[in-house]
Every structure is written in structure tokens, then in C-alpha cells.
């Protein structure tokens, strides 16, 4: 599903789907062992890393959750969403307001944030998803800026620039998630579950319909696929994940203000799938780690790190259209093909 392949000779939808199926449903032994190794490393990391590094990884997890929504829109729907920070903000403020100001239990705030996001996404998505391409992308960017404006002005809820301090720590069944290490074990399982759910969604009827809609919209329409409704669903899904991530962020940091929900955060959430690779849900893990860790590594170089970060994005758009995940897949594919070829020569 590399863009250059599709543009040269677009394969039939059926061919592409069956190839997709084969790739997704038959993990090899090597893949499984890599997966097991990754799981082990994941479990051990907070115990061996210093606190600051774990803190960064928690943020990576938050980016993965919000970015997974944007990535699904981009990879499965071909929709560029530059407004995810709006929903991240709705989640953040809902949690902060309900638990810090009203004293409600945390799940209530999280649920309100998600429901509110879904409702707003349904309401706004209805008209703006009629747009496509550039128009839709710029509409979402405008939406993000409008929401930042509203957060700024509605200071009776959001506290404006002063923000909402004193958001209590999250507690589930007696465990209080008050350290980066504990929060790590909360946020990453949620991120993995999200990605797994999207992976399954891709193989479902809805996922297949989405691919048909993206690759051959006219044919999809003939097959009675309701494009408008599908787009609205995945837009709502994406915004719900944005709200969930925002709620977790509020409880983790304990403080929210308008600076956390600006346009730069929307761009960041879009970068997660763009850099990681949007064609596979798991790509957002790579993207989130890149977004969360690379600026930190570069920050030792001083203020230039934002420029380098921007250039990294530009380079990934130009050179790796399928993100780092796609790059890795191409490289392993190359290695496998080459080793297969040599084996073929030695055993004729």
C-alpha cells in the first residue's frame, strides 16, 4: 500500500484486501518471538530507567492514544485531522473541572469528556466531513484554533491562562497512580488495547468498507457503502480517543491550562502517525516514541531542536511516505528476500 505502488498500477480492491489479510492473520514464529521480547522489555523498562525517562514514556503513551485516532483517520480514511488538540482539551478540561472543582470521581469526568467529545464530533463532523482533501484539513485546523479561542475565553470553566490546578491523581481499586512508574503501567496497556482494537476493526466489515471507500470511493458507493456515515464514525472514534488521552493527561499532570491544547499539539498528534506510519495501527507506537523522545534527545543541542524536529518531519514526508514503520517493513522485506534468494541458489 505504498503510494508509489498504488499510483503506478492500482491493484484491484480484492487483491489488495487479500494481501492485507495474509499479512495480518498469519504471524510468523520470528514475529512472535520479537513480540514476546518487546513485551518483556516493555514490562521491565520502568524498573531500570530513571524517573525522568519513565515520565517521558508516559507522555509517549498519551501521544499514542490520541495519535491512534488521528492515524486511523489518515490511514484508513485518507483524512488529515489538524484539530485533535480540541478534543484532547475537551477531555482534559472535563476531567479537571469535574474532579478538581466539583469533586466528582475520576471515571465520571473521563466519561463526560468522552461523551462530550463524541457529541461535538458528531455535530461538527456532520457538516465538515462533506469537505475533502485540503478543504477538510484546513477546516479541522480552523476547528482547533476556534476551540483554543473558546478555552481562552470560557475562563469560568477552563480558568483561562491560569488553568485548573489540583486535579487529583487517578485511583483504580485502591491503587493510586501517583508516580510515573505506576502511570506507565496504566497508560501503555490502554494504548496497546486501543491499537489492538483498531487492528481488529481494520479486518472487520467496517475496516474493509473503509479501505474500499479510501481506494475506490465510487465502487464503494455502488456496493452500498455509506461513505458519509463511515467517515463520521471514524471521526467520532478519533475524537473520543483524543478526549480519553486528554483526561489521562489531566490526571497525570494534575494541572491543565490553555497552553496544553494549542495548534502545536494538534500538529504533534498528526505527526505521530505521519512519522510512525499510518497504514498499520501499530505504526503510532513508533511515531509516539519518536515524538516523545527525539525532541528530548535533541534538546541537549539547545533551541535549534525545534528546527531539527521540523526537518525530521519534512524528511519523513518526502523520503518515507509510509513512515518509520513502513521503512522497517521494507528493510526486513529486503533482508528476507535476499536471504530467500541465496537459499534458493544453494538448494536448487
Amino acid at each position, binding site marked *: 500500500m505504498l*503510494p*508509489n505502488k498504488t*499510483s503506478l498500477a492500482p491493484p484491484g480492491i480484492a487483491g489488495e484486501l487479500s494481501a492485507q489479510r495474509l499479512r495480518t492473520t498469519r504471524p510468523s514464529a520470528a514475529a512472535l518471538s520479537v513480540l514476546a521480547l518487546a513485551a518483556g522489555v516493555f514490562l521491565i523498562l520502568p524498573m531500570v530507567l530513571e524517573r525522568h525517562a519513565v515520565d517521558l514514556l508516559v507522555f509517549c503513551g498519551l501521544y499514542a492514544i490520541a495519535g491512534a485516532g488521528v492515524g486511523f483517520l*489518515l490511514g484508513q480514511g*485518507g483524512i*488529515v485531522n*489538524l484539530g485533535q488538540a480540541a478534543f484532547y482539551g475537551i477531555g482534559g478540561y472535563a476531567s479537571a473541572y469535574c474532579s478538581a472543582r466539583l469533586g466528582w470521581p475520576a471515571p465520571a469526568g473521563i466519561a463526560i469528556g468522552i461523551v462530550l467529545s463524541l457529541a461535538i464530533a458528531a455535530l461538527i463532523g456532520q*457538516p*465538515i466531513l*462533506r*469537505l*475533502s*482533501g*485540503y*478543504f477538510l*484539513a*484546513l*477546516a479541522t*485546523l*480552523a*476547528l482547533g*484554533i*476556534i476551540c483554543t*479561542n*473558546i478555552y*481562552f*475565553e470560557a475562563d469560568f470553566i477552563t480558568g483561562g491562562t491560569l488553568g485548573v490546578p489540583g486535579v487529583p491523581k487517578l485511583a483504580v481499586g485502591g491503587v493510586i497512580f501517583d508516580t510515573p512508574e505506576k502511570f506507565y503501567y496504566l497508560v501503555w496497556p490502554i494504548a496497546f488495547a486501543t491499537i489492538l482494537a483498531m487492528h481488529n476493526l481494520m479486518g472487520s466489515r467496517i475496516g474493509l468498507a473503509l479501505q474500499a471507500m479510501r481506494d475506490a470511493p465510487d465502487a464503494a458507493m455502488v456496493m452500498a457503502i455509506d461513505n458519509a456515515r463511515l467517515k463520521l464514525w471514524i471521526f467520532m472514534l478519533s475524537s473520543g480517543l483524543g478526549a480519553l488521552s486528554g483526561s489521562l493527561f489531566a490526571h497525570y499532570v494534575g494541572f491543565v491550562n490553555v497552553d496544553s491544547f494549542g*495548534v*502545536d499539539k494538534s*500538529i504533534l498528534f*498528526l505527526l505521530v502517525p*505521519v512519522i510512525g506510519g499510518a497504514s498499520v495501527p501499530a505504526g503510532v507506537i513508533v511515531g509516539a516514541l519518536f515524538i516523545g523522545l527525539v525532541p528530548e534527545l535533541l534538546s541537549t543541542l539547545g*533551541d*535549534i531542536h*525545534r*528546527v531539527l*524536529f*521540523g*526537518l525530521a*518531519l*519534512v524528511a519523513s*514526508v*518526502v523520503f518515507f*511516505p509510509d513512515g518509520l514503520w513502513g521503512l522497517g517493513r521494507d528493510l526486513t522485506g529486503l533482508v528476507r528476500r535476499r536471504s530467500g534468494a541465496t537459499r534458493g541458489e544453494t538448494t536448487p
Partner: protein
Amino acid sequence: MLFTQALLAGVTNGFVYALVGLGIAVIFKGSHVINAMQGELAVVGAATAVFAAAIWGLPLWLAVVAGALTGMAIAILVELGPIRALFARRAREESFLLLTVGLGFTFSAGVLYLFGREEHLLPPLGDEVYEVFGAIIREHALWVIGISAALILALRLFYRHTHLGLSMMAASIDPDGAATTGINVRAMRTATFALGGLLAALAGLLVAPLIGVGYQMGPLLTLKGFAAAILGGLSNPLGALVGGLVIGILEAMSIVFVSSGMKDAVALTLLIVIMIFVPDGILGRAGRKGG
């Protein structure tokens, strides 16, 4: 009086939005790419002029020329490098958008790194203050209006009557046909970007004496320019002027009647409404898909 004052400010801003929108329209017309870094190019142009004057001590007119040429040079480099690479790959529309968004982010980070967080002001073209219907208008604002109007007119003449302008149009409308008549289609696309970059930098240079130009104002400027461009019709320079004036005046009225904090929200809501309800009259069915 507050009303008149807001109206004058709105008209002045409207001309600036028109110039930004014009640059977006020029690039879209010539390459079917929506340039999402137009606002950042304006910021880069203005910041370059400010620092050329302040640090290297160049005379103001030379600093302004340097700023304008910087905007143009960056746009040319962007076209020669990444844009061509994406065209060669036949990348999809979203790739072009991500590219220009990423470049915009990079430029705004570059301005932050080189020139700092504060807002930069250029000296105005004139210090006089005039009174119009009980409101005041600065001499520089009149210069902004006059120069923008002249630029818009010149652009119209350029596209209608010069060999280069007609070649650029032909290369965009029918690349194969243009190539058979000996037009270098790729060079025309570069020229298109050069013109767009120049217009962006000029917009930044004109507005810098009125409001400080900061590293983070790019996206908002791009969006308002884009709103002006599609409201007026992406293919018609005079249309961008009308669009810019509508956005500028509406924004000014929302300061008077709603609240000053909501002016961007009002302008951007208008953008969304325009895109949904009057898309075809503006860009034409064939042009809407872009890429």
C-alpha cells in the same frame, strides 16, 4: 466612533489577508498545491527585514528588499526540493499538505531560534495620523491599502498580458499542451512558487509596522488568507481582495459586537461555513480536488 475605528482597522487587515490569500491562490493556480506555509513565509520575510536593519545596519529600503527576496528564495528552494520530489512520486494531496505544514512548523521554529520570542516591528512608511469620520488612521495603513491594491492590479495585468504570466497559466491548465508549444512546464511551476513566496513576504513586510510579527502567527495568517482566497475565488485576484475585505471587516465587527478574544473564532467559523456552503462558485468543480 468605535465602529468607524474598527471598520478602518478591518479594511487595513483585509488588504493584508487579501495579499496572503493572493499568494495562496497564485500557487494553487500554478501547481494545484495548497501552500499551508504562506503565513510563515510572511513572518520570515518581515523578521529578515527587521534584523537586516537592526543587526547589519542596512538602510530600511534595502532591508525590505532583502526580506522580500528571502521569502521568494525560500519558496523557490521548497519547490525545487521537496515539492518536485513529491510530484515525481505522484504523491497524494495529503502528502503535499503535510509537507507544507511541516515546512511551516520548521520555519516558525527557525524564526524562534534566530530572532526570539518577542514581536518584531518595522518602522512605518510615514508617521502622519489622519482623521476620518471621527476615527484615526495611520499613514502607514494608507500605504498598506495603496500598495496592496497596486500589487493586485499588477498581478491581474501580469497574468493577462505578459508572456511569462500567460505561459504560467498555460502550464497549469494544460501541461501537455503547454509543453508541445515549447513552454518549460516545470520552470513555470517554480516561477509560480517564486511569485507566491514574494507575495507572502510582501504581506508580512507591509503589516509589520502596524502589528508586531511573531514566530507563532503563521497558521492564523495562512487560514485567514486561505479564507479570503476561497471566498473571492481562487482564480481571480480581485476576488481575493473582496474576500480579504469581508474577512477583515467581519473580524473587526466581532471585536465591537462580540468580544475581542473571539475575533479569530468568528473569522474561522466563517471560513468553515464558506467552504461548506459556497465551495463551487469559488473554486470550480474541476479545481477542487487539487493535487
